[in-house]
């Protein structure tokens, strides 16, 4: 009787879990790479420090990165790209609301579920791993706009890329390339300051750092004065560019889509 009770409980738990499990597993997957580098860098720093960062500071950096990455992650390839690829764009276009609101809605809904998974785990890890952070109110205040701009940049950039599906269904290959660039230049493989010279320059010029690493650097207090303002300027510029790109691609893509007949 015990066994069958457990079996039924397991069955119930599994069916509840199966619905949420899809989201949780996605969130889990996005967490793995930052975690690996959290462990690797903190072990490497050991009792001393690397480039001025102690073990605890690496831990803090990556824990914040996990949350920032989750908040800014662009799902537009699925919410927009797939719609175009699978010919479902017509239904969306018929609605009186611009399709972008659809994508935005999915953004917020999805992010909430992911964060429900992420936040407890990050909190638990913080308890185990003992991060060290020099918490300054001014950093926290700067963090909020940095995070908001990072989200907006990653969203519009992602949306623009997803719109390339209007021209070629194989455009999602670009995503693989982008994932690699984000991994290398957006603070995942290492904090940007620790990258070798060439890569660091690329990171500071290209938009990827401003999608993830920049807010993290702001909060963990590693940016000050000129660096901070330069960062915001670069972030703002890339955001404007991404938005323009989105508008242009949307208009031309739509024209092409409706001309071709969906």
């Amino acid at each position, binding site marked *: 009787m015990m066994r069958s009770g457990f079996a039924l409980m397991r*069955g119930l738990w*599994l069916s509840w879990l*199966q619905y949420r*499990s*899809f989201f949780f*597993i996605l969130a*889990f*997957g996005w*967490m*793995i*790479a930052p975690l*690996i*580098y959290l*462990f*690797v*860098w903190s*072990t*490497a720093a050991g009792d001393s420090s*690397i*480039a001025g960062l102690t073990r605890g500071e690496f831990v803090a950096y990556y824990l914040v990165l996990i949350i920032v990455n989750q908040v800014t992650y662009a799902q537009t390839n699925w919410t927009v790209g797939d719609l175009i690829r699978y010919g479902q764009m017509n239904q969306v276009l018929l609605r009186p609301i611009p399709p972008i609101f659809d994508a935005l809605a999915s953004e917020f809904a999805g992010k909430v579920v992911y964060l429900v998974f992420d936040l407890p785990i990050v909190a638990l890890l913080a308890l185990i*791993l003992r991060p060290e952070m020099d918490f300054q109110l001014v950093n926290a205040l700067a963090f909020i706009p940095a995070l908001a701009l990072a989200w907006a940049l990653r969203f519009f950039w992602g949306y623009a890329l997803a719109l390339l599906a209007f021209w070629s269904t*194989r455009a999602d*290959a670009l995503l*693989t*390339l982008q*994932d*690699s660039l984000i*991994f*290398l230049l957006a603070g995942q*493989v*290492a904090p940007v300051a*620790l*990258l*070798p010279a060439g*890569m660091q320059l690329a990171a500071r010029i290209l938009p990827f750092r401003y999608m993830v690493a920049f807010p993290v650097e702001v909060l963990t207090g590693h940016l000050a004065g000129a660096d901070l303002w330069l960062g915001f300027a670069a972030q703002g510029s890339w955001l404007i560019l991404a938005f323009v790109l989105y508008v242009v691609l949307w208009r031309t893509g739509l024209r092409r889509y409706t001309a071709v007949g969906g």
Partner: protein
Amino acid sequence: MRPLHLIAAFMRASFQEESAYRANFFISLLTSLLNLATGVLGIVVLFGQIEMVQGWTLAATLALLGVYLTVSALRQLFIGPSLEALAGMDGEIWTGAFDFTVLRPVDTQFLASFRKWRWFAVIDLLLGVGVLVVAVVLLEVSLSLWQILSFLLTLFAGMSILYAILLAFAALIFWSPGVLFTWIFDGIFQMGRYPLGMYPGWLKLILTWVVPVGVITTIPAEALLGSLTPTNLLTSLGLAAVLVTAASILFRIGLRRYASASS
């Protein structure tokens, strides 16, 4: 003799199926190269800041990456595709075509393990072995016969453990379709890119005894580098024997359940 003929037939049919989709080739190639580049660059960036981490140098860690890529490639060559044809998203159990597989006069586990070959993985395999070769060259040591033999032995043991884990997850489909353990495992398996020594103590234990990722990648790397301890060798072999047996038993129990409970 006959198992080999059979595998050859499966290899041939799989190659024909794969060739039917040419467009994917270049995208797969791009993905493989990017995967390689990010892996190598990750290590380069790390060792740009520090000489050695827990006894692992750049060359040694590169060797580990080579093992990881080789193991991943071998998995994608036949173990992964075959088990997925059975238990994956579009697998036979879902479509109901599994009945045909059960009807064949060939052992079902054999069919489930060797039936589908993904030839593109040979390219991944070459890349992985390439990284291994580069790492060994950078190490500037000549490999002894024992190092090579123990490497092959522990690599085989590691692949067997990986096979056992994936077989066990596939077998779970006889009880509960839609189990997503393989995805979770894939996430944890990523940790095999870096040496066990670079992870904290509690994680090391988990990655040895709970999800033996460390045994699959780190131990063969140690063998190649000449730092393999007898304990680790025996652990690797013992774990492989135990897990393969357990997974096979689980699979057979699952088959029995399928023959009793399905309608």
